[in-house]
């Protein structure tokens, strides 16, 4: 009987420990370097998206306006 009481008390202590451990995990803040890193990465990603959405990124360059001449060597090959 005494053993059972002891076990029950241990279980209760474990539950309290686990709960307080979980609370401690939730309460611990993110390191400052991660916050700064995330802010910089977010700003750079936003710049990247804006640059691409405004048509200054890859795939929007003036390939059609610039039609270069074919090289003489390749023209020779094609003939």
């Amino acid at each position: 009987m005494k053993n059972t009481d002891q076990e029950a008390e241990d279980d209760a202590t474990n539950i309290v420990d686990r709960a307080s451990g979980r609370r401690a995990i939730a309460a611990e803040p993110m390191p400052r370097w991660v916050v700064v890193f995330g802010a910089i990465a977010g700003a750079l990603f936003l710049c990247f998206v804006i640059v691409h959405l405004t048509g200054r990124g890859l795939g929007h360059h003036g390939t059609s306006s610039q039609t270069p001449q074919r090289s003489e060597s390749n023209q020779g090959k094609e003939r």
Partner: protein
Amino acid sequence: MIMSPGARRFALTAHVTTSVGWLGAVSGFLVLALSGLTAHDTQTVRAAYLAMELLGWCLIVPLSFASLLSGVIQGLGTPWGLLRHYWVLIKLLITPVATLVLLVHMQPIHHVAQLARDTLMSQADLSEMRAQIVVDAAAGALVLLVTTALSVYKPRGLTRYGRRRSLRETAAAS
């Protein structure tokens, strides 16, 4: 699954070699992109873009995948884990994104290289796209420098999952 010390050293060597090799190859690519943009000699410009395509497909793309794979193996096989530490997690996020962006940007590089192969390329041809390639290569080198610095400095900070795991391990040990 924790690797044996021998396997761990081998995996670490592979990861360091591929990651630093990736950074070195991107730096070489940046030099070629800059000379392709600024050189006045047509032969130099054409040679630069042909070499860039070769460097991209034969070295940079394989190294990016090798770095990602060896990094995942390294994370899974050592106590560092993949999701326990912020610095590992950030590297795990950066590497696949950088690989994906690299694959997307190989298309314009192929386009410019094709132009260099088929035409007498002048400085005015695709100047915006060529400038963009320089910017992308510089950004890629910067991102890889950041991941290298993270690996060397290993800044402290456990993720929520990492804290939970270490709490569980401490409880199991006591």
